[in-house]
Each structure stands twice: as structure tokens, then as C-alpha cells.
């Protein structure tokens, strides 16, 4: 900046008034004492001084100032402000001047010291969660960033938090401790442990008095009453608080060990909630204490930290496995919702019923199939099957018998030789009997009867032997068989009615 002196003397040699001197000239980093001994400054447009433009041809182009629009200038200033690391995250201490609250709820105020003023804007959302309200005349420390409000061409502090003065020391200590512990790796994401899914035993470390313990207990009761809660009271404010918090965390850790050692794992806490209600940064300061941070990191159980309001961030939050925005939120994060778990359980019940129904239906289908299969097995088919099976058996039996006979052949032949004479003798006897019987039959035959004078009468037309007189009406032809020869005759009808 200091080397942007114009190469030529300002025309006319008339000195601009003191108040018009550009600030950059008096801040030259080469240690020059200012305008009194330095070369005359470049002409600068001021509200009252006439604009003196260097003539073309006198000043080389690269040194000729370009003419910017108001917006362009504003953007240059804005960009310079925004890119400056020192202005992005600042703590500013000063006395509060006039305070105006807009209808939208934003607060506009000035911070001033003996020589300067700084315009500040504090938006509603940030302001409403703050326990502290700036009032005219108070010395405060405001945290925020410097930015340019282009419409009015002003730079101002966009406030995120306001604390009473005296806090500045704390803020510095906070940043220093945070940097140191972070360098040790205490806040690293890799250190964070996952929370248990549905913890059976939950340890809570907070103050026994106050709404926080009540709120946490209420949330746990509503969401997951299946849990057991082990409460470790501690002071959360004032000088003794850090040691008290460390002792409470230690009691929880030792109690968990004790339960396991005594064979009561069901009573051992598996997750810890460390909580405190909202307050000023000083109120919450115990949770920025190095002892507390180290106790959290060294705590054997996964730990959820819920301190203050959503905008309050403490080192305990950084060190915890999970940071909850509020104490109630910490309780909600730790346990499942009973309603959701009930829905999960109902889904399991539906699956169970579904699979049971499918199993029974499948069994029923299978049974029906068996029955149909049985019905289709008609007896005839089964008989055929049996027959086939029997046929196979018979074949086998036959083969066996034939084999046996083959073996027994010679013995049978011998037996036959012995039997044949006996058979022949029998047959001879039978022939003799037959001959005598034939003779007997001959005696009993019709010829013998005819020989004795009887005759056999037949009708001529059909050869039928007549036994009754009415079987041959008058005129019917007759054949009469005698012992020797046959006689033809004509019937004259029955002689008397039969």
C-alpha cells in the first residue's frame, strides 16, 4: 500500500485538509510517520474536495486509477473484509450504546470505546436463546463476524453471542484449552464410541436439584421404561463443580465394574448421560474444565453430553462420544422409542403368523396331494402291480423248481421203471371189467326188449317216439320198429279220449 504513491507531484501543490488524508497512508508499514513527512498523497475523492483527475499522457496507464462504481467499491471492501481471517471469528469488548429491537426481533446496537464505534446486529434466533441481553451502558463481549452491509455501505458486527465483560478471559482460555486438547487428539472422531442399541441400564450424571434431572427422567419414562436408570448426583455450577462431575463419572464407572465383579451384569450401566441446563458461559464453565474433559475421554462407557441450549458448545461436548443439543435430547438419543419398537415387534408378529399360515397351507396342500394320489391308485391297478410282483416271484420259483427237477431226474426215472409193471397190471384188470360191462349193457338194450315182442312207434314226420295216443292224430304217418324190420302205418286217431 505504501508504494502506491503517485509518480508525479499533485498538481497545484495545495495540501488536502487533514481529515481527508487516506487512512492507508498514515498506516504505512514502512514506519513512515505519516503525511507530514511523506510525499503528498494521491488525489482522493472526498465529499468536499474536488476530484482531481490525472491527465492522460502524464501518468502511465498502469498507475492511472480506474474509476469504480459505488457497488464495485463496496464489493472490493466487502471482499477484503470477508477474506480477512481476523474478521471472520471475532470477540469484541466494548460498552453498549443505543439498543434498538426491530419488529422482527433483531437487535441493533453499537459497541464503543473512547475512540471508536462499531455497529452490531444480533438476529432474533440467536438473541432469543441467549440468557444475556445487552443494555445501554453495559460492558459486554460480543462474538461474531465482521461483514459489510452493502445497501448502506457500512461494515458491522454480525453477533452470534453476547456475554458480560470479564468473559473475555474465559473465551481466550476456552480457545487455548480447546486447541491444546485437540492437538492431543482428545476430540478426534476416531475416538468416538457408538451408543448401545437398547441400553438396559443408563447412568445419568447431573444435578439432583433443578429441572434437568426431572426432564431426563421423564423422557426415559416415556420412551423406554424398560430401562433401569442409575443416578449419580453432582454439582454442575461453581468452584466445586468440576471435581464433583469427575467424581460422579468415576462412581458410575466403578459401579459398572462392581456389578460385573459381583456377577450382576444386568445391573451394570452401559451408557452415561452427562447433562446440565442452560446458562451463561460462566455458568457452563465447569464443562470446559480440563479435568472434566479428561474424565469424559477416560470414561469407560459411551457418553452423551447434553449441556445448555443448542447454541452452547462446551469442551465436554467435543470430548463426548455424542453431543446432544439439550439434556432432554441426550435422553432421547440414548433410548429407542417404545412406539417404534412396538411397531417392530408387530412386524415380527405378522411375519410369524404369515410363515405359520404358509406352513399350514403347504402341509394341507401336500396332504391333499397324497389323498388324490391314493384315490388314483385303483384296486385293479394295485392288483396288476401285485400280479406283476407275483409273476416275478413265480418265475423265480419256477426256475428253482426246474433246477431241482433237473437234479432229481435220475431218481424219477428209476421210480418210473419200477412203477410201469404195476400200471400195466392194473390196466389189464380194467379192460376185463369193461368187457363184462359191455355185455351187461347189451342185455339191457332195446334190441333185447324188441326180441321179447315189444315194438317202438315213431311219428313219420319228425321221428319222435310216441308215448301217448294223442301224439298221433288221425292220418299221421307212423313207423313201427319190430325186433326184425320196420313197418309203415297210418294213425286212425286215438281210440278213446286221453
Amino acid at each position, binding site marked *: 500500500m505504501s508504494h502506491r504513491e503517485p509518480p508525479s507531484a499533485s498538481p497545484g501543490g495545495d495540501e488536502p485538509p487533514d481529515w481527508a488524508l487516506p487512512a492507508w497512508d498514515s498506516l504505512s508499514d514502512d514506519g513512515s510517520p505519516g503525511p507530514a513527512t511523506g510525499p503528498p498523497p494521491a488525489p482522493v475523492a472526498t465529499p468536499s474536495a474536488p476530484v482531481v483527475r490525472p491527465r492522460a499522457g502524464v501518468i502511465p496507464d498502469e498507475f492511472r486509477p480506474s474509476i469504480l462504481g459505488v457497488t464495485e467499491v463496496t464489493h472490493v471492501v466487502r471482499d477484503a473484509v470477508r477474506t480477512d481471517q481476523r474478521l471472520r471469528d471475532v470477540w469484541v469488548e466494548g460498552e453498549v450504546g443505543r439498543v434498538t429491537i426491530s419488529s422482527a426481533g433483531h437487535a441493533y446496537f453499537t459497541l464503543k470505546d473512547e475512540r471508536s464505534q462499531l455497529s452490531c446486529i444480533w438476529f432474533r434466533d440467536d438473541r432469543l436463546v441467549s440468557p444475556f441481553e445487552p443494555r445501554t451502558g453495559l460492558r459486554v463481549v460480543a462474538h461474531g463476524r465482521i461483514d459489510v452491509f452493502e445497501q448502506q455501505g457500512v461494515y458491522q458486527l454480525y453477533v452470534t453471542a453476547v456475554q458480560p465483560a470479564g468473559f473475555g478471559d474465559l473465551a481466550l482460555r476456552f480457545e487455548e484449552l480447546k486447541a491444546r486438547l485437540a492437538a492431543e487428539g482428545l476430540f478426534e472422531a476416531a475416538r468416538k464410541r457408538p451408543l448401545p442399541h*437398547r441400553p*438396559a441400564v443408563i*447412568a445419568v450424571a447431573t*444435578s*439432583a*436439584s433443578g429441572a434437568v*434431572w*426431572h426432564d431426563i*427422567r421423564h423422557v*426415559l*419414562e416415556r420412551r423406554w*421404561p*424398560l*430401562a*433401569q*436408570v*442409575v*443416578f*449419580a*448426583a*453432582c*454439582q454442575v455450577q461453581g468452584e*466445586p463443580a468440576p*471435581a*464433583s462431575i469427575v*467424581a*460422579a463419572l468415576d*462412581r*458410575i464407572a*466403578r*459401579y459398572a465394574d*462392581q456389578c460385573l465383579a459381583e456377577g450382576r451384569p*444386568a*445391573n451394570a450401566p452401559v451408557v452415561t448421560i452427562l447433562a446440565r441446563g442452560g446458562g451463561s458461559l460462566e455458568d457452563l464453565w465447569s464443562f470446559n474444565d480440563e479435568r472434566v474433559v479428561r474424565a469424559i475421554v477416560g470414561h469407560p462407557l459411551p457418553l452423551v453430553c447434553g449441556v445448555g441450549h443448542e447454541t452452547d458448545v462446551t469442551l465436554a461436548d467435543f470430548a463426548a462420544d455424542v453431543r446432544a443439543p439439550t439434556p432432554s435430547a441426550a435422553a432421547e438419543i440414548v433410548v429407542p422409542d*417404545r412406539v417404534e*419398537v*412396538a411397531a*417392530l*415387534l408387530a412386524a*415380527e*408378529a405378522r*411375519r*410369524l403368523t404369515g*410363515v*405359520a399360515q404358509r*406352513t399350514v397351507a403347504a*402341509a394341507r396342500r401336500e396332504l391333499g396331494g397324497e389323498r388324490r394320489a391314493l384315490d388314483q391308485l385303483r384296486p385293479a391297478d394295485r392288483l396288476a402291480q401285485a400280479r406283476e410282483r407275483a409273476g416275478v416271484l413265480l418265475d423265480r420259483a419256477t426256475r428253482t423248481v426246474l433246477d431241482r427237477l433237473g437234479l432229481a431226474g435220475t431218481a424219477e426215472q428209476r421210480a418210473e421203471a419200477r412203477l410201469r409193471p404195476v400200471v400195466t397190471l392194473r390196466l389189464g384188470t380194467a379192460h376185463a371189467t369193461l368187457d363184462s360191462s359191455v355185455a351187461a349193457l347189451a342185455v339191457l338194450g332195446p334190441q333185447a326188449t324188441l326180441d321179447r315182442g315189444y315194438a317202438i312207434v315213431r311219428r313219420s314226420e319228425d321221428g319222435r317216439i310216441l308215448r301217448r295216443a294223442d301224439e298221433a292224430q288221425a292220418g299221421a304217418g307212423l313207423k313201427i320198429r319190430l325186433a326184425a324190420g320196420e313197418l309203415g302205418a297210418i294213425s286212425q286217431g286215438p281210440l278213446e279220449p286221453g
Partner: protein
Amino acid sequence: MTTQMPPDIANLTFDEALAELQRTVAELEAGGGPLEASIAGYERGVALHERCAVLLADAELRVRRLVERAGGALEAVELRADDEALPDGSG
């Protein structure tokens, strides 16, 4: 239903019962077992579900307070549900 619950199920914690229920359902869904085994699995599943449902419906938050005894041993003292006012103390 509750009175018929097998004693081993009646003593399960919610997580244990739910885990076994999920395992049982998965096994039944995989299928393959004989019908008798499926029916037995279903009956056990019903009992496990009943156990979970009862725990979910009837549970009462049990709150105890850690108290340090003289020897350094810790004791968890039962707090009643309406026992809101607690003496502060860091032990």
C-alpha cells in the same frame, strides 16, 4: 397366554426375547424342517412375542441412586417414581 409361557421365556429380557423371536421367524421363513418342528417353532415364537409385548406394555422405569458407602463400595438405592426431591451431593 402368559400363564402358559415356558419359564425360560418368562425370564428373558426384552432384547433376548426379541433376538430369539427374530431368529425363530427367520428360521421358520427359511423352511425345510418337518411340520412338527415348524409348529413348535411357531408356538415358541408366539410365546416370545407375548413376552416382548408384556415387557413393552407393563414396564416401569426403575430409578436408583448411586450412594457411596464408607468402605468405598457403591450402592444403588431405589427411588420411587414420585420421589422428585433429591438431596444434592457429590458423594
